[in-house]
């Protein structure tokens, strides 16, 4: 089996179900068995997608959303990983801050939008921070648990070799936690991406989330679906990217491969 085949096969398998679903949807829609107002047919959605693409409207909004999601993810995810690392390494710190973080974790975005606006205004800050709030937790918890899942045997090795705090973190704890950290990154990216929908409510005039809200308000369902498809596809792409990096980074892992 050549490398090409290896890379293409999973893709083909993965396409089976989505393609079947889309085809069914298109056929049922075309025959009028699904309300085209509620669920415009894929071809209709594609037409809108195409015209938005050509007009440049799509790209402008997408770029803004991407930048927001990225900043939010970097900020929230970065802090989450850092906090997870510290809390994972220090029991005292865990006692001190983990309970509060666990409480904050459960507070819904929608309940605090007014407070975010009050504190951070309606500029980019509040949007990015709201996304960051969402992206923080999956990475925090996964990093934390990844570190706590580190094999004590290796921890003992690091002690015997006289590793200081930094070496212990970066040469022992962090690599041990890598599989979990990658998962955390994937979950955080997803959350960051989905938080856009709420964040772009906060006084936005552009962005994919805004576009969807607006279209929904005005009953332009096919535009809503363009947004949904973009969310899904870009989300999936970013996820696949992380998994690609993960596969390379975790080559050393001798684990079950299914």
């Amino acid at each position, binding site marked *: 089996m050549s490398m090409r085949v290896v890379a293409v096969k999973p893709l083909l398998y993965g396409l089976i179900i989505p393609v079947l679903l889309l085809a069914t949807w298109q056929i049922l829609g075309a025959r009028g068995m699904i309300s085209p107002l509620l669920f415009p047919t894929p071809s209709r959605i594609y037409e809108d997608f195409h015209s938005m693409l050509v007009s440049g409207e799509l790209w402008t909004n997408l770029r803004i959303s991407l930048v927001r999601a990225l900043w939010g993810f970097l900020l929230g995810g970065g802090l989450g990983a850092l906090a997870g690392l510290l809390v994972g390494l220090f029991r005292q710190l865990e006692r001190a801050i983990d309970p509060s973080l666990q409480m904050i974790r459960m507070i819904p975005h929608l309940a605090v939008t007014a407070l975010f606006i009050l504190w951070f205004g309606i500029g980019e800050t509040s949007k990015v921070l709201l996304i960051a709030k969402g992206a923080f937790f999956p990475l925090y918890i996964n990093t934390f648990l990844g570190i706590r899942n580190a094999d004590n045997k*290796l921890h*003992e*090795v690091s002690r015997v070799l006289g590793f200081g705090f930094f*070496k212990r973190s970066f040469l022992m704890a962090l690599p041990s936690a890598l599989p979990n950290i990658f998962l955390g990154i994937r979950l955080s990216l997803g959350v960051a991406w989905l938080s856009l929908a709420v964040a772009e409510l906060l006084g936005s005039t552009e962005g994919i989330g805004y576009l969807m809200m607006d279209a929904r308000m005005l009953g332009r369902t096919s535009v809503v679906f363009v947004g949904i498809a973009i969310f899904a596809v870009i989300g999936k792409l970013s996820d696949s990217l992380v998994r690609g990096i993960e596969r390379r980074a*975790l080559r*050393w892992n001798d684990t079950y491969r299914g």
Partner: protein
Amino acid sequence: MGAALLEIRELSKSFRTDSKTVQALHHIELDVQEGEFVTVIGPSGCGKSTLLRIVAGLDVGYEGQATLDGRAISGPGIDKGFIFQEPRLFPWLTVEKNIAADLSLRNPEVKRRVGELIELVRLNGFEKAYPKELSGGMAQRVSIARALLRNPRILLLDEPFGALDAFTRAHMQEVLLDIWRRNGTTMIFVTHDIDEAVFLGSRIVILKPRPGEIRAKIGVDLPYPRKKASAAFQDFRMRVLNEFERIDELSWGEAGAGI
């Protein structure tokens, strides 16, 4: 001889688990002088690893005293090298990086020493291999090299040669004796092989199990290099064997005869 480098007094250690309590060590008394080569033997599960771990500073929560250089042992340190019973390599690092561990291979001095050690443990060609690509014995040799790189003042070895074939083992014994002689490293060496214990040790400590107690301490006054075939060697071997055999719980007829 002045005060001993390592002093162990009335050392007891027990493990409490949900189901029961195991007394791993009981009233151990042991002094180790600077530069000594102490070999420790004893039946499986008698507390050899536990003793080594306490000296390394990995296990605390024991009773009695264990002092190194007159100070209570508070934790592991770079001056105490430890070779674990299993290889315990970092799975994400290649052989050479595992040996270097926290030292950077970009440092030419480190690079050179790592290269030397790889040669010494006969792993040339496997510098870039990951632990999952090594055989059992190869992994064990990597962990030995890792401990040797650091030139510790005291080296604690927990059955380091257990997974090696007779020849590689003999080679590694020579390597170890060489290091001992050259650097004056204090060695505490746990083994299951009585020949090995006699061949290497300037003193042999025999433990008996449950509770782990010292059965005997035997000074080996044979000159180095020792010849395994010599009569004097065989004499010592028999003495150790006898002590070992008297360990009550393990006295089972004929089996011992052939060892």
